[in-house]
């Protein structure tokens, strides 16, 4: 995972899919990263490299959302793949992740 600090926004660029096989490591890494940037006022989860997420991946993103809430900092998801985006829409998570819901045809 790549970490970029843009002004006071911490951009977390995930290296690939977020799946049950790597969420444990990602949790640890995310906790360490957030701890290392106490001045950040916003967190952006950049999914540009991820094609898909599974339930554990969704759980990880929700945990990151809650963590941000706990630290009183903003949170949003950016650059989801169409598949991930569709999933977030169906689960009604897009709004929570700062994504504008897309209307289905």
């Amino acid at each position, binding site marked *: 995972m790549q970490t970029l600090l843009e002004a006071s926004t911490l951009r977390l660029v995930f290296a690939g899919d977020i799946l049950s096989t790597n*969420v444990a490591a990602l*949790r640890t890494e*995310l*906790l360490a990263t*957030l701890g290392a940037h106490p001045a950040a006022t916003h967190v952006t989860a950049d999914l540009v490299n991820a094609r898909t997420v*599974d*339930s*554990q991946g*969704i*759980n*990880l993103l*929700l*945990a*990151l*959302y*809650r*963590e941000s*809430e*706990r630290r009183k900092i903003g949170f949003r998801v950016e650059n989801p793949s169409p*598949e991930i985006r*569709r*999933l977030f*829409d*169906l*689960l*009604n*998570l897009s*709004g*929570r992740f700062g994504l504008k*819901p897309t*209307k*289905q*045809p």
Partner: protein
Amino acid sequence: MSTAEQEMLELFVQEAREHLGVLESDLVSLEANPRDAALLNRLFRAVHSVKGTAGFFGLTAITELAHVMESVMALVRDGRLEAGPELINLFLAGTDKLKAMVASPENSADIPSLAEREALGAMLRSDPPARPAAAEKDILPLYLRSFRIDPELVRSALRNGHHVYVVQLRLHADIEAKGQGILDYLREVQSLGTLIDTATDIAEVGGLDAEAPADVVCSLLFATAMEPDLLLGAFDLPAAQLVQAAAPALREWLATQPVLGPATPPPPPSPPAVVAPASPAAPAAPAALSPPEDGTTGTAHPMASASRTKPDETVRISVSLLDALMNLAGEMVLGRNQLLRVAESRREGAGAPPEHEGLGGIIQGISAVTSDLQRTIMRARLQPVGGLLGRFHRVLRDLGQKLGKEIQLETVGDDVELDRALIEGLSDPLTHLVRNAADHGLEPREERLRVGKPPAGRVRISAAHLAGRVQIEVRDDGRGLDPVRLKAKAVEKGLITADQAERLGEAEAWQLIFAPGFSTAAVVSDVSGRGVGMDVVKTNIERLGGRVEIESVVGRGTAIIIRLPLTLAIIPALIVGCGDRLFAVPQLNLIEIVRIGPDRPLEDFGGSRLLRLREELLPVLDLSALLGLPATEDQAGSGYVLILRLDRRRFGLRVDQVADTEEIVVKPLGRHLQGTTLYSGATLLGQGRIALILDLAGLAAGRLPPEPASTRETTRASLRPPAEQVLLFRDGTPETFALHIANIGRIERLSSSRIERIGGQDFLRQENGPTLRLVRLQTHLPVTPPGPLPAEIHVIVPRLVDQPIALVAEEILDAAELPVDALDTSTLIAPGVLGTASIEGALTIILDLYGLLRAAGLDRPAIPGGVDLASRRILLAEDTLFFREAVRRAFTGFVGALDVANDGEEAWQRLQTGAYDVLVTDLEMPRLNGFELVARLRSDPRFKTLPVIALSARDTPEFHERARIAGVNRFESKFDRERLRRALIDALSAPTP
């Protein structure tokens, strides 16, 4: 309410009770650990689950109270509010109210909870709200409020006769674990109807540091033409995860919604729309920290608790179904009993026709399967006792506050399982005992500090399986029961005379607390009642087929020990007759049966009938007279007297006939008999007749004469057993053999055709255990050679031996008492024989099990200890000849010298003159008992480090504890030679401290 809805509601009640039970004990724990994140999450989940599921049923009162509790808990969880005692009190008060509501969900709206909600609400208001609370002004059912609903979609669905459902989905457990992708699954869902909205529940998702990430639960609001069962099949979900929205409620809500233009045609089944209307329906009243915008919290997830276990490994079964299964198993047992009786009568008659050959084996197979079936179903009725024990955290916390005492509770054995009927029956007695321990047992803080105890008193409630029974113990580290004070109080209350008090031993004085009206508390408090409780506790436990015992050490504490059967549903009983009626007597209470006749009549004494039995006069009740049955010709001079035990009191019950022993299925009494105290139930016997089960406590209540001093004195002496229980049997020879009951694991009757002969030895294969090597007594003992084996034999499978063996017995005669001093060790001397004794008028060979094994070449070689045993000298203190002989043989050839003392006093004298390496001592002895002997040794510098092994036939944790406190190094059962030998080696190998 339909049956299905009723079942759902029952499921809710059951689940909610579990959640509230967890809530209560966790809240008490939270007070001690206010920052325990895991605890907070669990609390949050429990109250959230109650709220969510109650919402499904429109139980608004429960939902609202749970909601405000959840909101305040969220503040605590997020570190915005401190979980101090005041807040915990509010939570506990809320929990109490929820419990009351859940107990009667139909009436939950009538239970006032405004005070609790307002008190908790004040906590919310003290926190700056994250967003203003939305008003719940719409009339949408609560379980739908977390969705943003497009009224047009609902209107269209109803117009087309479609059903609207709320479907709970656990993304991993319900989808991925079944090999599907979430997106694919949802696409399939969409092909079956209209997905109106979804709401993903993030309430259970913790932060990044959550220890065990929860499954993500998503609720779908879905409209389809499919009926519920079809839909469940299509979604592959359990019924509990689907709720059908009530159409009238939806229509009522639709009436408040504006109609947008002309009616729209029904939407195509696929692809449907995920709708995000401009003005969302009001979400459930949000907490201060409720998430914004989409109102996706607060959805119900009835399977939340199930998600912690693998879904395919457990199923929830209603109690009524289990009861029905148990009843059927009971009927099966009755049928089996009848079948066995028919088979028996055929065998005794003219003989079976040739085509029936082998029928005995088939019946035996059915019998074994029936027993297994019954045992398995009984296991299914068992529940962990932890739920019951856990509630005492709250009880003691409240009591501690009230009494101004600091109390720590430890529960042990929460996983021990007990029949649910017993758990229910235990609740009240146990509550009373725990309250008593806190109120009367534990000293106030200052007093504890003064006597050098830690300021916090300790109460320990433990549960354990012991010897096929369950033992529950309430132990405190308080003052202990002072026999002197107890006796003084009893005299003062007029319960006993000063003279009687003088003669009471320590254990008998403890029993005084069970006397009606007895209370030792200097101040009668509302905490543990007014001295009317302990007798009721004892009566209730006895009604459950259990017993209560006391162990106490002054200044150190008290333990009340309850021993219970595993189940109340099927019990072994003795069937007796009076006139033409049959009755069942629970075997648990039966000690022995005495035939009375001209040579042994009942005696009249002061208007009471008494039986003289081994120098003891026992009061005898007459069953015919008690029940008002027609008197037989000479009731005092014929029939049988059952010697029964109720707690420590023994008495006789005269009956006309003794029929048989049988495993009986306890059936409740009909309404017309429920007022009586004479019967505890009814049963159907193998022969097809009905027998009433005698309630011995009710039968004896108020009917036994006052305990005469002579009887009590005998009872005092009999605290040490005056005789040992042995089993009498024959093995095809005229000789009668006896084996100590403690050496017997089980007895089986089987067809001798099952015996297999291999290499000159007999073996018996078992389905669920190792093959047993059969030992024939006549092969190894100097007795008359027997004839060929009969068609049916018994095998006695011993315990406390390491080898899989069994003794063959052609005939089981009886259980009898061997007077401990009646053993004759000189008439018959042979390996495998402990001695002879005259039992019931017949010369009987008392077997030495280990000697017999040695004679049969089955004994294990002596344990090599690496210790020079030949030069060691052991002192054995044992007052009974039987055990002296048994222990002497266990050590024969094993140690250099073994001296024997007949009691503690004699042992003390011998220790003054002889040098011994180890003392092996009985605990219950006259003059100076084992506890006193060891205490005396430990206070003398010469014997402070002398290794002491205590022996007792009473292998109970309390005895262990008392022995340990007295200064005993090891505690061993008298019957287990191997452990005894190992203990001796350990004692001699241990470095001297």
